[in-house]
């Protein structure tokens, strides 16, 4: 699964720690999602979309379709 987390975060000038605080997860979780090492659970994916005020499909997409 691909995501636009790094881009969206950069647009808002948030650090990984800032985003982690907003999501109540660890900074390493944000890092692992951004680098594609880890796919978040559905509740966390929805939380991420909500934090960026976007639809979930605007943040995440299956491999090769973003």
């Amino acid at each position: 699964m691909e995501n636009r987390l790094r881009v969206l975060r950069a647009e808002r000038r948030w650090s990984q720690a800032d985003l982690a605080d907003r999501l109540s997860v660890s900074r390493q979780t944000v890092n692992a999602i951004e680098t594609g090492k880890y796919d978040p659970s559905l509740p966390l994916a929805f939380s991420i979309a909500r934090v960026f005020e976007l639809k979930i499909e605007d943040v995440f997409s299956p491999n090769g379709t973003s």
Partner: protein
Amino acid sequence: MSTVRKSYFGCAGLLTERDARNLRIFNTWMMGTLVLWAGTTILIERHVIVWPIGWGLTLASFIACLRTTQAYIRFMRDSDELLRKIQLEGLAFAFAGGVVFMLIWRLCERLGAPKLDCDDPFLVMMLCWALGQYLGTRRYASTEP
């Protein structure tokens, strides 16, 4: 819920404040249980204590084990989802390592290898658990600060 800087298998920023607190509680119970269990074992084996006290200490060790298990379950339930994944992989490592070790060593015993106590595979499981957590941390988390 900010991320704390405490290192976890050489990786900073993997523990949230809640995870660090729960891990601290679990570690405290685990160390207390180990000390109580080891002390009880030594006292019973050396016949230092009479049997009612021995049974009392054994019961105390059992209760301490249950509280340690409870603390670990709470740590797992409340933990950050990446940390939970790393922990689950560590537990899978421990289970697989323990089972493989017991099965293979049983064959080795029949070929003349020394017989093991029932708590020896436990040590292998603990080592595999630690190794699984280390590998999981290296795999999913960045070790850069």
